[in-house]
């Protein structure tokens, strides 16, 4: 048994399910479960195949691997989806507002927020797992929380909202 990932499989799987279920590619819980189980299996094999070499240890490495695999999966699907003509927010919306709000977040905001809130990572740990600087993580958390609040019908002072509302997320380079 691989001790590094198997000890916290429960929280890793919970994080994966929350991350993978979105409004774009994975529209139902059964598909999300299948995808996450597959990614967790792949993340267990990744160190053997020496994919994603990382200086991270233990739990952080398992989460980072899962994030990397999910990003790769999304990139592949996005490339296939270009011809299909996809529109944002086309997925089925059912469930609590907070769940819909999280699913509607762009991937990079969703993974930062879920890693900290659901995965229980500190900010320092999350920057290492996501391989981003602290300022970038804080910006993502800010944008994620603002969007989520907006989705749940909470508004803050208008100056900050306007600043963040139109901010771009991951740019698609064609």
């Amino acid at each position, binding site marked *: *048994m691989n*001790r*590094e990932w*198997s*000890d*916290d*499989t*429960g*929280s890793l799987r*919970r994080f994966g*399910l*929350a991350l993978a279920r979105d409004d774009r590619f994975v529209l139902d819980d059964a598909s999300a479960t299948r995808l996450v189980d597959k990614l967790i299996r792949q993340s267990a094999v990744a160190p053997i195949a020496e994919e994603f070499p990382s200086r*991270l*240890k*233990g*739990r*952080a490495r398992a989460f980072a691997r899962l994030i990397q695999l999910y990003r790769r999966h999304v990139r592949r699907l996005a490339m296939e989806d270009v011809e299909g003509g996809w529109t944002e927010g086309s997925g089925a919306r059912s*469930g*609590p507002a*907070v*769940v819909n709000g*999280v699913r509607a977040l762009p991937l990079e905001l969703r993974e930062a*927020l*879920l890693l*900290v*809130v*659901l995965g*229980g*990572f*500190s*900010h*320092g*740990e999350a920057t*290492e797992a996501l391989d981003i600087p602290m300022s970038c993580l*804080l910006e993502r*958390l*800010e944008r994620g*929380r603002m969007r*989520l*609040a907006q989705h*749940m019908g*909470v508004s*803050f*002072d208008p100056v*900050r909202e306007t600043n963040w509302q139109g901010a771009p997320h991951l740019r698609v380079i064609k």
Partner: protein
Amino acid sequence: MTDRFASSEAHGYVDSCLDPQQKRAFEARLHEESELRRRVETWQAQNEAIRLAFGASPRTRFSLGRPSNENATARLNAETDLRRVESSPAPRKAGSGETSQAARPVAEAPPPALGMLRWAAVGALAFGLLCVSASGGPADPRDALMDAGASALRAFSAAAVAPLDMPTHDARALAKWLSPRFALNPPLSGLEIPGWSLVGARMVPGTRSAAALILFENEDHVRAGLMIEPLDAPPALAPLARRIGAVASAAATEGGHGIAAMGPSVSVVAALMRGRGAGGD
């Protein structure tokens, strides 16, 4: 102090990433700035809602690179602290939560505005659970444990050719080999069963993750097995016994593990379960 910097502190506060001194300073600011307080309360409510919605236990904190056993202990401590906070009607004294885990304060009393939200969410969750149990309830994990245990025992019975991962007659050597493979110490005491000798152990598929199958053999080369599987915070369930074909089987869940005992007779199964402190009658 710029708005951006204030915001980073707010995120640190909400995610329990500030040290005690920073936290106290920030809380002093919260009393003065109502907009900041409102934002922090909203974010805290978001955090709680996300944890509840996706089935996580509230406020667990882990350290990067620490051994998993320590992480599991930290998680248990955090949950124990939180239960203590929730069961106590009196507010906690300032700083009392920071003595046990000064570097990582994990369990704090929620602000008053969040208390209502938390109890509302707990109520909704309880109602949902009642609805589930009224409609037949979720599957009993002990049934799945017994099925998985019986399958594993069949695969590694005397006629099986698959080798053991750890062939040994020494219970202490087996415990030394198995313990690092579990986040929480597995219940490995009382492996001496009269009339049965320990053969060894093998990692086998469990119900949700890999499990350890410990094998015993009597002088007629009949085998009995004890399967221990780490589970994600299972409820403590007393032993349940049934027969699966020719195999007598019993299973229980306790202390982060699922335990299944399998053997040719009820007496050996009961002896194996008693060794775990799980009764077995």
